[in-house]
């Protein structure tokens, strides 16, 4: 197992390097001169040239990349020229919000997706299965901003059960905090559960056709025991991957959902950075998020190996 972990960790290095290069290029290739952004459109050419020199923007691209990477490796991702905050400070302030949102969304998604998948697989092709598969398809095609607006309209404006926008930290008021997160998390979860459900459903249908299930049935075990104990674990391999990949996808979703529900998370930070052309924050956040994604994938790989020993021995 240790061997496997080390191999995977080493494989991550080139990926992370590629990620850093791409992030750097994205920010550098965006139209608009950083010096001009900082000084404003009315800056004189001399001022712009002086600032470009100060910031090293007159150096070749490769030199700038290496010097940036050097700083990044020392934990210095730069400082926003608009707010004076460092990237790490800004991210540290925002990350708890996004993490809570993603975890709650994934949790609600699983809460809906897993039972529905099991119920569908138990009677594959039945009325319930056909209805839920259809609904899942419909939900998958619904853009999250529309779901968000519908939920706000129903639960905040009409029924007044939940707040439309806002946030308080969990440490300050746990219950209020959860209330603020219900609608945004539900918005993301409504786009999540169909994927979870479809993957688990098809895997379970396949598992239920295996010989050992037939044996279990022949032994007269209760159907619920067969479903939950004998079929669920071997069927959840793909689900683990999907859940892992979802976390990355959810980060994309937070861009929209955090803006709509006014949650002060990473998504909002990123949107704000794009809007104000705060390239330092943009670069830093994209890099951290990409690294987070790589790490989540690594964890998924590890879980895989735990769930299916054949993988860590290189047989699968």
């Amino acid at each position, binding site marked *: 197992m240790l061997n496997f972990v080390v191999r995977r960790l080493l494989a991550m290095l080139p990926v992370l390097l590629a990620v850093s290069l791409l992030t750097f290029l994205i920010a550098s290739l965006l139209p608009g001169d950083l010096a001009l952004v900082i000084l404003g459109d009315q800056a004189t050419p001399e001022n712009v040239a002086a600032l470009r020199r100060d910031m090293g923007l007159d150096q070749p691209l490769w030199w700038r990349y290496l010097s940036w990477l050097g700083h990044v490796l020392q934990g210095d991702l730069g400082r926003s020229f608009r*707010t004076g905050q460092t990237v790490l400070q800004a991210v540290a302030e925002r990350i708890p919000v996004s993490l809570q949102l993603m975890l709650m969304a994934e949790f609600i998604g699983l809460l809906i997706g897993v039972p529905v998948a099991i119920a569908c697989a138990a009677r594959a092709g039945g009325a319930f299965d056909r209805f839920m598969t259809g609904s899942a398809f419909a939900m998958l095609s619904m853009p999250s901003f529309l779901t968000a607006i519908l939920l706000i309209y129903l639960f905040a404006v009409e029924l007044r059960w939940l707040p*439309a926008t806002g946030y308080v930290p969990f440490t300050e008021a746990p219950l209020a905090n959860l209330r603020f997160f219900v609608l945004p998390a539900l918005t993301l979860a409504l786009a999540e559960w169909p994927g979870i459900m479809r993957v688990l459903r098809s895997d379970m249908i396949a598992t239920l056709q295996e010989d050992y299930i037939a044996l279990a049935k022949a032994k007269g075990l209760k159907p619920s025991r067969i479903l939950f104990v004998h079929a669920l674990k071997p069927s959840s391999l793909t689900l683990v991957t999907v859940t892992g990949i979802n976390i990355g996808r959810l980060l994309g979703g937070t861009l929209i959902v955090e803006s709509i529900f006014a949650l002060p998370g990473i998504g909002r930070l990123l949107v704000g950075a794009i809007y104000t052309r705060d390239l330092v924050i943009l670069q830093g956040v994209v890099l951290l998020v990409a690294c987070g994604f790589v790490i989540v994938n690594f964890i998924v790989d590890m879980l895989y190996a735990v769930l299916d020993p054949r993988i860590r021995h290189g047989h699968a």
Partner: protein
Amino acid sequence: MTNAAAVARKRVPIFLVAVFALATPVQAQKSGGSITVGQELEIAGFDPLKVGVYDTSTFTAAAAIFDTLTTLNDKGEAAPKLALSWTHSDDYKSWTFKLREGVKFHDGTPFNAQAFKENFDRQKDPANKCRCAFYITNVKEVLAPDEHTVIFNLTDPSVNWPAVITIQSSNNVIHSPTAWKTKGDDYNRNPVGTGPYILKSWTAGDRMVLEKNPNYWDKGRPYLDRIILKPLPDAQSRFASLQSGEADIIWDDENDADNIMKAQKDSKLTVHTYKGSGAQVYAFNTKVPPFDDVRVRQALVMAIDRPKMSQAISNGLSRPASNPYGDGSWVKCKDDGALPFDVEKAKALIKEYGKPVEFKMLVTATPRGRMIGQVLQQFWKRAGANMEIEQVDQATIPTRAFTRQFQLTPWRIVDLADPDPQMYANFRSGSPLALAGFSDPELDRLLDHARVTADITQRTEDYCAISRLINKEAIWFWTFQNTYYALSSARLKGFPKIYNGVIDVSTTWLE
């Protein structure tokens, strides 16, 4: 004799406003309570050296935390705030302000002429490379001859200077020098002013809590104990927050016409509208074909059906403009020389031009920018001109405009108390902002005359003549006047006019 004293002797008093005239309240103000303001953007900070220029959301906070020397009264005239009275030199190039005494910043630092001068010098200092410096290039220097006197020496005359400096911009609000010196980089997010509210806490991306300044110089004010500012970037959920009572007042604009109209019908809500001065405008580059021919320019202007365009982009909320001043301006013209909407005439002019009229127009890469481009494209197609839309980033437009890399570009004349600063910059020969590249001795004469004339009737005549000349030459055209919106709960009272788009809640109270 000091230089300052010499300047002071030449001065002629215009207004000596000794007492701060309090308007008779229509309703009794109530003290206490707290409101939540839903803003469009997240506030980046307050230090001019960091943020350069304030955006609309920062204006709201700045109006509560800071004071300016002067303010605009309900008639749109300059009124005292931290300055009690002012005088000017004969040539309007030097203005002397007498400051209110006994005012202190939130951190206890006394507000005086020296503090004001330090604010100004810090922005002007080339070593600080402040983006804000561009907007004070017309101020040569600020002097502080004694503790309560501030003198502005301007490079060009300005007859309405006290009104020009009323906006809560990064140039005009006054910071505590002690605070920025001691806090350094952290000052940006820990602003200290003399204003009616003190910054209590600020959670990045979420809320800014402002609390009543118990030692505010204007006794009895402010009324509300607390103001909470929240960035709610999405227009739909911002409006939902107002409807569900989570926000008491929200920023809005014509892009969101549906919700404004919904609010107009809702008795629990109040729609605050301010018909400002200025307009949404477009500049032709008259140095390049086909716009080097006046007939083409006139034809394009005459082909625009503004009411139809307003219907298409904002459900009819946008108010057509026929001059650059707008209903909110004191410039009222009997004849502004606007070209009539006349497609047949436009076709005839293009035919007379004789060559195909093909050009590119810059628009912002936003849904609204694209839509405006498409509507104009259709109008011009009917007149026989082919326009190609070139979508660019918002930030690219000024750069392209200043370097004259455009044929037709959108622009904006913002709501200012006086037309002079913008008209002079946009149309005086040789100005870097004279985007059309058009030069006319009569236009220059009128612009020069208007800025050194005190008589309002005479100035109005000048500006109307300027409008007639620009409309006739069609070097720029105007589509819609600036209109500003705020939607609030009907309980919120005392909300002032939305000058320059600033949602100033520092004078409000809850019924």
